[in-house]
Structures are given as structure tokens and as C-alpha cells.
């Protein structure tokens, strides 16, 4: 296995899925954001976004907090420390893999 293939083979599959990649990239630039913001930016429907978030939460990459804004329920999302690390690593590996 050459260097290029190794970089690409080591890519994290959870993050690599386009929908989850969008979510991780959006959360990478912020401290936290709510469900509505992610829905607005990604253009996904509630069900799809929810299932991607559950998958990211299972992997330990996203932390989900349920709270209230006044009387309205609000779901806050943030990348965990592991999530940040994996996303940064993913970008690095992909860049190396595509450049070589």
C-alpha cells in the first residue's frame, strides 16, 4: 500500500459521509449551534439531520444538550474534543491523499 492509498484508507468513515461532514464542518467553526441553524445551513429535513446527529453522537463526536429558550425547546449541539480531533485529522489526511 503506497502513501496516498494509506492516507485515504485511514479516513474516518463516520465523518466521511457528506451529510455528517457538513455538520462536523459547521460545528468545527463554532462553540455550539442549535438544530435550527444546522437545518438552515445544510438544507436537510428534520429526520435526516436527526439521524446524522444521532450517528455522530454515538461515535462520541457530537454532544447534544436539550434545553429551553423561553418556553420553546432547543437542541444545542457542539463538537466534542474527540470530534474536533477527528475532523482536523480527516481534513489533513484527505488533503494529503488528494495532493500526492
Amino acid at each position, binding site marked *: 500500500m503506497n502513501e496516498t492509498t494509506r492516507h485515504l484508507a485511514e479516513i474516518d468513515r463516520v465523518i466521511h459521509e457528506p451529510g455528517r461532514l457538513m455538520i462536523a464542518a*459547521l460545528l468545527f467553526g463554532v462553540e455550539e449551534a442549535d*438544530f435550527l441553524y444546522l437545518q438552515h445551513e445544510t438544507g436537510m429535513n428534520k429526520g435526516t439531520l436527526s439521524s446524522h446527529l444521532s450517528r455522530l453522537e454515538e461515535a462520541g463526536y457530537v454532544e447534544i444538550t436539550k434545553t429551553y429558550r423561553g418556553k420553546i425547546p432547543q437542541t444545542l449541539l457542539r463538537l466534542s474534543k474527540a470530534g474536533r480531533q477527528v475532523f482536523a485529522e480527516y481534513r489533513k489526511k484527505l488533503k494529503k491523499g488528494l495532493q500526492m
Partner: protein
Amino acid sequence: MTDLTADYIKRPVRYNLIDGVDEMLIGFLFLALPLLAHVANVAPEGSVWQWRPLLLIINGVLLVLILVSRKLLKQLITFRRTGYVKYRDSKIKGMIGAIVGLAVATPVMVAIYRLWPPPQRERHLILISSLLWAAFYTYFFIYKTEMYRTYRYVVVLLMAIGPLAVYSIFGNVRDISTLSGAVMGACFLISGVITFWSYLRRTHPADAEIEDETK
């Protein structure tokens, strides 16, 4: 793919300026400060409006009013329509920016005061400040937001030449620099109102249950 992620990472920064709230509030501040300076200029000798501590207090109140208004507008309109974002703490970045800004601005100001005598100085200061504000507007409200709309370029043009045009027309007015500042404020305010209006037209308050989807 890497470019795609870079674009998504930048989106929250763009989102911060999507609603025109910051433009409107900067415009309001820029209009209020020259108005205050004008009142102090035209007030009779010994008037309370010429008492400097009062002007400082009013400036402080204005600043608080603007910060509170921003928070309210974001909470009541933006967060309800397109979602809430908390940005990562960038105090160190801000401090570095302020130090670099001061380090650049101080020698420039000293040079301007030494090189140009008073009649020319005011004209040059107005020109430099209007070009700087036009550059600031272009960077933050066009480049960062990537909202390449025609009215924004008209605003840039007005910012760059407006204050100097005002100076050329009303050069003999006593407080010409405050009038030029007000032109800048009007540019920000008009741009902010157009952006805000277009944001309200494009978006609608979300359903309450939209927030609570993750299991």
C-alpha cells in the same frame, strides 16, 4: 472536498452578518455620535451640552443601548428564524488586532499631523477615514458574507467618495467632519436596513417543534 469543508467552516462567520443587524447598529452609532458633536458645537457657551463628562456618559449609554438592541434583535428575530450560534471565544485574536491597529494608526496619525497644515489636514483625514471605512465595509460586509449584491457596491462607492463630496460642497460649514461622519453612518444604516428587510422576506419564524428532533 477540502474546499467544501473550508467553505462550511466559514459559514458561521458569514451567518453572523446575514441579517444586517450589525450594519444597522454601526450606522445608528455613526449617526448619533456626529449628531451629539453637532449639538455640542452649536450649543451656547457654558451650556450643559458642552460639559464633557455628560458627553462621555451619553456615549456610554449609547454603547449599552446598541449592545442590548443587538442582543434583543438576534434573540427575537434571527435565532427564531434561522437558528442560534455561539461563536468560539476569540479574545486573543481581538487583542492582537487592536494592538496591530494601534501600531499602524498611531504613526499614520502622527505623520498626518506633522506633514499637513490644518486646512489640508481635515480634507486628508476625511479622505483617509472614508477610504478606510469603505475598505472595512468591503471586507466584512461583502467579502466575508459573500453577498455580492449591487446595492453593496453602491454603498462602497458612497462611503469612499461621499464624505469628501460633502466636504467639497459644504467645506465652509463649522463642523464639517461631523457631517462627513454622518454620511458614513447613513451609508451603514441604509445598507443594514436593506439587508435586514431582505432577510425578513427570505426567512420565516420556525415551528416550535423543529428544535426538538434528536432522540
